[in-house]
């Protein structure tokens, strides 16, 4: 049977699947980006030592929290959508 793209799109379950896969790819790529950001901040904090109140450690903490938020969004997308 030939593949009919219109019929595929009109099927509600297929739309859900399409959205889910697209979303997982997007969030996955974004998780990689945030991980890179956290790694860069970590390496910068090893090159340059800033005072504790100037935010170097704080930014590293924010980057790690942000990475875990994106990671949890990835998991939520797998489970819910």
């Amino acid at each position, binding site marked *: 049977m030939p593949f009919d793209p219109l019929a595929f799109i009109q099927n509600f379950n297929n739309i859900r699947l399409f959205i889910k896969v697209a979303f997982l790819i997007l969030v996955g790529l974004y998780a990689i980006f945030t991980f890179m950001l956290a790694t860069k901040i970590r390496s910068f904090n090893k090159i*340059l030592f800033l005072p504790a109140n100037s935010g170097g450690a704080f*930014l590293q903490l924010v980057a790690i929290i*942000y990475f875990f938020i994106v990671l949890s969004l990835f998991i939520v997308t797998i489970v819910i*959508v």
Partner: protein
Amino acid sequence: MPDIFTDEAINPTAQTPKPQPVTKQATAHHKVSFLSTFVRDPDGVSLAEQRDDEHILLFIRRDFITNVPWIFSTIILIILPFFLPFVFQPLNISFAFVPLTVLTILAIFYYVIIAGFVFANFVTWFYDIGIVTEARAVDIDFYNISYVSVATARAQDLKDVRYFQRGFFQSFFDYGDVSLVVEASGETLTFEQTPRPAEVVNILSALIGGHD
């Protein structure tokens, strides 16, 4: 009769102040805060390969005003979704067929991306640092996430220093690019959009002069 020619008495206490080399200046340390862009003799800042006797003279970041474009974009992006219904309703486009859970996650993802945009831009600004020590000038550049550059030039290798202020905003807010020409290679090290560029050039000129 009035004396026309007299020997001036030499006052031992009144001496012409000698220009002091940069390394010998009496310094009061200044604190570096979260949003500092220009700190002379910063307290608590150090480099990984810094010698014990190497004193940091200047800590600079891009001027904070350079952050205004992305802050403005962020505000637009935050309020944009609230105007979407007004755009789609006249066009008779409905998203009723999309499940609510999908819409919710889409909205969360959208705002997570905005948070990431803010964070990446802030980090780019935060780690775009220039440091001048008694022995060298260090320029740390952080463009996006994919490009990082750490350039160092020894003070004795610096040949020339100049600054550029281009356009109305740079003149109005007093920031600009400071370029250092390295003698051996002829390459330039640039502190981009640094606040008070004239003062930075002064400090660097004194540093170069001290090593001549």
